[in-house]
C-alpha cells in the first residue's frame, strides 16, 4: 500500500465542530480563570493603589497582610465558619435526608420547606435573620416579654459569637440543597443492601453509619465541593447581616479582599489577600479535581 497515511487529516481539524463549540469554555478557562488569576498574582507583588501599576515591592504586601489584625480575624472566622458549615451541613443534611427516606407522608411538603431558603439570595437571608436576631425586636425581646427578663440572645451584637449568628443564617439557607443531594444519594443505593442488612439483623442506625454512609462517597464528594465552594465565597451574607461587625469581629477574607481593592484603594494589598485565598483553594481543590476529572478516563 503506497500512501501509508494517505488521507490522514490534519489533527487539529478532527472534531472541528466540537472544538469550535468549546471555544467559550476554553476562553473562559484561559482568559478569565487562568489569565485573571495570573494577573492577580502578578499585581500582588506591586504597590498598586487605585489602578494597577507594575511597580514591584516583593513580598511587602504579604508581610503587611499577615501583620494585619483584620486579616487574621477574617482567616480565623473563615476557619470557624468553614468547619462548622461543613460539619453541620453534612450532619443536618444527612439526618434530614435519612428521615425523609423513611417512606414518610408529606415528603414533598417537607422537602419544599427545607429547600425554599435556597431560592433566596444571601442578601434576603441576611436581612431576615438580622431582623430575627435583633435584640430589640427579635427572639431576645420576645422571650423577655414572656417574662424571662435576663434572657440574652444577641449573637449579631456579641463579638465573641457573631460568626455563629451568621452560621445560623448560612445553614438555614444551604442545608436544604445538601439534604436533596443526600436524599438522591440515599435513593441511589442498591435496595438489596438494605435487605441484606435486615436479614443480618443490623439495626437501622448501624446500617446507616457503617454501610450506607461509606457507600455514598460520590455524593459526599459532590456535596463537599458544593459546600466548600460556598464557604470560600461567603461575603454577601456577612455584609447583609453585620457588615463585618461588631467591630471587625465577623470579617471574612472575601470581604477583606473587596474592601482593600476598592475601599482602601490598595489593589496590591487586595491582590495579596486574593492570592492567599487562591492558594488555599488550589491546595484543596486541585488534587481533588485532578483525581476526579484529569486522571482516569471514562469507559467507552
Amino acid at each position, binding site marked *: 500500500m503506497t500512501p501509508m497515511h494517505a488521507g490522514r487529516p490534519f489533527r487539529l481539524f478532527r472534531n472541528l465542530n466540537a472544538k469550535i463549540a468549546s471555544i467559550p469554555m476554553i476562553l473562559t478557562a484561559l482568559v478569565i480563570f487562568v489569565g485573571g488569576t495570573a494577573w492577580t498574582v502578578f499585581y500582588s507583588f506591586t504597590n498598586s493603589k487605585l489602578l494597577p501599576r507594575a511597580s514591584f515591592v516583593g513580598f511587602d504586601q504579604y508581610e503587611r497582610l499577615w501583620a494585619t489584625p483584620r486579616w487574621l480575624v477574617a482567616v480565623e472566622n473563615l476557619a470557624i465558619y468553614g468547619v462548622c458549615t461543613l460539619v453541620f451541613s453534612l450532619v443536618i443534611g444527612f439526618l434530614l435526608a435519612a428521615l425523609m427516606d423513611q417512606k414518610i407522608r408529606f415528603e414533598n411538603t417537607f422537602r419544599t420547606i427545607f429547600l425554599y431558603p435556597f431560592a433566596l439570595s444571601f442578601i434576603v437571608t441576611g436581612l431576615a435573620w438580622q431582623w430575627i436576631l435583633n435584640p430589640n425586636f427579635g427572639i431576645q425581646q420576645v422571650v423577655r416579654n414572656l417574662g424571662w427578663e435576663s434572657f440574652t440572645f444577641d449573637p449579631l451584637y456579641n463579638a465573641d459569637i457573631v460568626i455563629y449568628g451568621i452560621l445560623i443564617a448560612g445553614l438555614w439557607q444551604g442545608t436544604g440543597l445538601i439534604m436533596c443531594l443526600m436524599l438522591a444519594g440515599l435513593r441511589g443505593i442498591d435496595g438489596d443492601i438494605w435487605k441484606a442488612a435486615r436479614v443480618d439483623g443490623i*439495626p437501622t442506625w448501624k446500617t446507616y453509619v457503617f454501610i450506607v454512609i461509606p457507600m455514598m462517597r460520590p455524593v459526599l464528594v459532590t456535596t463537599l465541593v458544593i459546600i466548600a465552594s460556598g464557604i470560600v465565597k461567603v461575603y454577601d451574607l456577612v455584609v447583609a447581616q453585620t457588615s463585618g461587625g461588631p467591630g471587625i469581629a465577623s470579617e471574612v477574607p472575601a470581604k477583606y479582599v473587596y474592601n482593600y481593592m476598592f475601599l482602601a484603594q490598595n489593589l496590591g494589598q487586595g491582590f495579596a489577600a486574593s492570592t492567599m485565598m487562591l492558594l488555599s483553594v488550589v491546595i484543596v481543590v486541585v488534587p481533588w479535581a485532578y483525581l476526579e476529572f484529569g486522571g482516569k478516563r471514562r469507559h467507552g
Partner: protein
Amino acid sequence: MTSVVVKDVSLSFGAYDVLKQLNLDVPEGEFLVLLGPSGCGKSTLLNCIAGLLDVSDGQIFIKGKNVTWEEPKDRGIGMVFQSYALYPQMTVEGNLSFGLKTAGMARDEISTRVARASEILQIEPLLKRKPAALSGGQRQRVAIGRALVRDVDVFLFDEPLSNLDAKLRSELRVEIKRLHQKLANTMIYVTHDQIEAMTLADRIAVMKGGVIQQLDAPQVIYNKPVNRFVAGFLGSPGMNFLDGEVEGGAVPAFGIAGTKIPLDRYGFDHVAAPGKAVLGIRPEHVALGDAASTMPFSAEIGVELVEPMGSDTLVWTKLGGQSFAFRVEAERHISRGDRLCIGFDPARASLFDGQSGKRI
C-alpha cells in the same frame, strides 16, 4: 417435616396484586427452585418468606413456627442477592462477621464460623480483601458465605448467578449443588434460567402472574408440563408447538393441514374432546432417517435453516406449514434445502387445549 410453609399468602402493591393466595410447602432439606418469567413475583415471594416484605394476607411458617410477623433476622434464614449486596467498604471477613458481631456473638465463635464458611467456599485467601478487589464469582461466593455463617435452616437465593457470565455461571451452579449436598439445608432458589432450575432443583415451582403453575420434580415438569406456558418456558431450544385439531373417533388423531398424527399411544389426562388443540414436541425427541420411519408418526420435510451449536445441531423446517425444529448430533451433515424424513412418538409429546392451554 416441612421446613417452610407459605399459606394463602397474598401481596399487593397498591391495587396491583402480585401474589394471589399462594400456597407452598417445602420439606426439610429440599432444594426448591422458583422459576418464572421476569415480573411474575418470584422475588416478591422470596422477600415475603424472608420477612423483607409484609404480606397483605396469609401466613408463613418456618420450622413449624408462625413467623408472619417476625423480623427477618429472627426467622432463621439466610439470603443471597442477585447483586451480591456486599458491604463495599468492609473486607470479606468484615462482611461475613458483621451480622454476628451485631448480634453480640463471642469473638472466637465468630472466627470459628467465618473460618468454617470460608473453608467450605474456598475463600480463605480472600478474607482480607475488599469486595471491589474480587471477581464476580468470588463476590458471589462471599455473598453465599454471609448467609452461611448465620448457620440457619433455610437459605434463600434470589437469582444469585444471573450477573455472571455463562462460563462462571455453570461452574458456580455445580458448586451450589455440591454445597446443598454437603449442608443438606432447605434452599429456595429463584431464577428465570431454566437450565439452572433443571440442574439444581429437587422440585421446581413454575410461576406466572403470581400463581404457581406447576410444582414438581424437574423431569416431570420437563416431560409432562401441565400447560402450554410451562411447556414453552422450559427447554432450549424450545418445544415445537403445532396448532391443529384433535379429531375424535376410534383412533384419536391430531390433524394439521392435511397431515394426521395418530394419538392412540398418547396418555390422555382426561377423555379427549374433539376441538382446537396444540401439540408440543421437543426438538430432541424427533428422530431422523431410519430411526424416523420406525416411529408412529413420520413425514418428509425440507431443511430451511441449520444452526450448528457445537455439541449438536438444530435444524429448522416446516411441518404442516408451521415452523418446526429438531436436534441432531453435530456430526450429521445437513444443509439448507436437504429433504429428510423425520418422525416422533406422540407418546412423548404433550397435547394442550387450544383455548385454556391446559394439558389434555
